[in-house]
């Protein structure tokens, strides 16, 4: 397997995660739109005419050129798309290529602009209205899309709308694109349309939609019902969590009795626990090896620094290493014991999907994280993502090192100059994470 395909796989999984997040975002928006009162939509709709003209003058001429160029390219793409004809609404096959081009366009837009800004819902609504007024050829493609879109409740967002929003959006951030695109789709599908050409189409599509509920009375009931159900769920969760803390003597008694029927040399715990332990020890061991190695290298490079502190820590590392070795011996025996009894299909290799704790008794239910301010939640989520991405990066760097080191060790001094650019690339990948490059100079002075 090539290392390139591994990185491509990682990219693919990132994109899949992006799609999932986008679906969630769409879902939350719909819920919020339904549940919270929206006082702004009426006044914003009447302002839309002013907004459109105001927005036009805000875009700088240079950006306008770029926008027009891209618009032309997009028009072409869309014409090709609609040339094939709109297939089933919300079909996944269409969704996937749409998402691909959307990301391509996002890439372009994001490269122009920069960081995140917060947007208010009224602004997003106004942008949505502004999009509908754009006279470009793209607009008349929208009805075809919208009639598909209006009825599907899944998260497949219209590329036409997204493309326009990607380029006419003032914010030019990824988030901005996603937001305005989603707003547009949602606003068109759900709200009472009072603006021009596209409105009638989506309206008829909506009236054709199956089982639309009656208006006001049941709507507010639904919101209240949703709220009360969610609160009930919260209370129930708290009770469930409380019930987890109570011990269950009957269960442990039963387990003891069953364990008594096991053969005498049956290992303790379970293969899952052993597996988790092996995984943990492997990581700790490699960490230790890396520590010692780096320390030796640094010590070699700078022999003038005092070796006294180095000596102590080295000794401590060695003691820890010896302890690890002994313990690892025990664990290995346990592994082998499990292996002897293993039926076909059982597996002891560490998998990612382990939810086993090191004392492994009962895999607990999802814990609850309580927070008081929005900033706390945002920080928590940001950290989670950062840690996951960091782990991914390190996996890849390790794989890179393992792959490249045989090639490197084959570069021996002697006649024949090795490829300089290869050396530069390898140095930057392995030593600087691909971010900076060294300079390699040919030193042809005779000694």
């Amino acid at each position, binding site marked *: 397997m090539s290392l390139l395909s591994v990185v491509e796989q990682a990219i693919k999984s990132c994109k899949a995660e992006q799609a999932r997040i986008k679906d969630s975002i769409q879902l939350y928006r719909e819920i919020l739109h339904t549940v919270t009162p929206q006082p702004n939509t009426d006044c914003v709709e009447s302002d839309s005419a002013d907004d459109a003209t105001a927005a036009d003058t805000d875009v700088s001429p240079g950006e306008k050129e770029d926008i027009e160029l891209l618009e032309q390219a997009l028009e072409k793409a869309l014409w090709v798309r609609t040339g094939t004809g709109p297939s089933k609404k919300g079909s996944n096959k269409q969704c996937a290529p749409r998402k691909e081009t959307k990301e391509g366009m996002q890439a372009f837009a994001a490269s122009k602009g920069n960081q995140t800004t917060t947007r208010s819902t009224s602004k997003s609504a106004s942008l949505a209205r502004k999009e509908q007024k754009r006279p470009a050829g793209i607009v008349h493609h929208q009805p075809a899309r919208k009639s598909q879109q209006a009825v599907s409740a899944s998260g497949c967002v219209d590329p036409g709308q997204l493309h326009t929003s990607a380029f006419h959006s003032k914010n030019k951030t990824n988030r901005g694109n996603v937001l305005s695109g989603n707003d547009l789709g949602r606003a068109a599908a759900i709200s009472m349309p009072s603006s021009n050409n596209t409105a009638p189409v989506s309206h008829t599509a909506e009236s054709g939609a199956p089982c639309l509920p009656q208006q006001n009375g049941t709507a507010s009931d639904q919101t209240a019902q949703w709220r009360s159900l969610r609160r009930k769920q919260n209370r129930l969760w708290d009770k469930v969590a409380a019930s987890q803390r109570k011990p269950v003597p009957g269960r442990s008694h039963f387990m003891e009795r069953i364990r008594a*029927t096991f053969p005498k040399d049956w290992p303790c715990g379970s293969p899952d626990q052993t597996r988790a332990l092996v995984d943990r020890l492997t990581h700790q061991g490699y960490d230790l090896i890396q520590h010692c190695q780096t320390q030796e290298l640094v010590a070699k490079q700078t022999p003038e620094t005092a070796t006294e502190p180095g000596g102590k820590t080295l000794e401590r590392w060695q003691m820890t290493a010896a302890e690890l*070795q002994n313990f690892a011996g025990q664990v290995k*025996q346990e592994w082998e014991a499990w292996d002897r009894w293993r039926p076909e299909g059982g597996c002891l*290799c560490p998998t990612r999907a382990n939810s086993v704790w090191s004392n492994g008794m009962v895999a607990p239910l999802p814990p609850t994280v*309580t927070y008081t301010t929005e900033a706390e939640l945002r920080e928590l989520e940001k950290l989670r993502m950062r840690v996951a991405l960091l782990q991914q990066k390190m996996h890849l760097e390790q794989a890179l090192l393992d792959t490249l080191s045989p090639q490197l060790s084959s570069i021996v001094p002697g006649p024949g100059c090795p490829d300089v650019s290869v050396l530069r690339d390898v140095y930057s990948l392995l030593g600087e994470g691909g971010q900076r490059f060294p300079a390699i100079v040919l030193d042809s002075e005779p000694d």
Partner: protein
Amino acid sequence: MRRSKAAVSVEVRQVIGALCRLLAATGLHAVPAPETFRRAKFGGGLEVEDQFWQLLTSILQSTGIVPCEAFNQLEGVSKHRKLVAAGLWQTGYHADWVSGGEGGEGGQGGRFSSRDLLLALGWLLATGTLEKLLTHRVQQMDNILLTPIPVNPQLSSELQLHSASLRKLQWLIGSLKYQGQILLSMQEERTRLLHAVLFAILQTSVSSPDQSSTVLREECVCVQQLCDLLEAYLNWKQVENVFWTWMDSVVDCHLTDPVVEKPTHAPNGITRVCHHGNRGLEKFEDMILRLPRGQKGQRRGRGDAEDRGERGERLQGGSDTSSLPPLLSSLPSLPTLPQVYRAKLQTEKPIKRGFRPAEVPHSWPETPDELPSSQATQLLLHAEALLLERRDRQRLANRIQLQEMVGKLDELVLIPP
């Protein structure tokens, strides 16, 4: 006053009914009727066995205890048997028919009956399978959980790279980094919306928006199912002990029957290789070999003696690997963070439950069900710091080695950035 047998059996039937309702609420399709459980205790026929095979199979598949791909090519009864055997072994269960050989149509002597399956089910329930099923179902149905982020690629052991494709690799790595940044910003947006949703739940606004949507209706349906599931779980927890008492009686039945000779050693000495090729074990052994050795002679000797001592212990009853020796446990290790969380917005002051806020946890506390976000954040920061330290160390080592290597080449001089 002894309760009449009838009253006890009625209670047991009710309790088993609660269990069946709970299993059905977690989305399993193959839940037998309570009566079937009683028949299984006394060895119902093939029909009862079949139902239990189905139940065990679907439990093991839903909870992901058994990797499904290993069994896709099998069909029918032997598939059930093998899958269930693998799954039970995975949780540490032993029974004759589980590790019996190929001809084990009933282990030694054909004594297999539905009671064995019932005991296996009991074992699964006792080792936390219900909680796994619950978690799995909640993840499916609940939209406002904080879910895991699966972005790690599967690495196989043989990876190649041509030096000509280094440029492409660099480009791909840059592209990956960019995808990561997109993810971060999308995640931020999602979190903001999630908070808004959680906040909206707690609000008590009376104004009625005149919108309604299919999405909300579907949400209500899902949340209703979730509430049913949680209620079923709570009901079960209240009457759980009765079930375990009954299972005790099943064990009694099992033991009082004439028992076949228990094997004291494994049936065959052939070590088969799992479908990953024992990769985990290889990596482990490789690590052990590469560990830095101290003063070789003494330590090795001591190590051997200790090993032999341990082996002696093991024959008696399994050495305890559940607690790490002292130096090892002081080694920094990444905290195992749970995969799925539930976020809860607290508007009132939380009750202090004896947490000392100044204490920074370095690993997830043993069984907390509720954690303030500040502690979770601390854990994550700690994990991030460890990872960064490890990464920077590795890069430093790489740089030094590469510089040395280029230094050996006569005509080239490397100038680091």
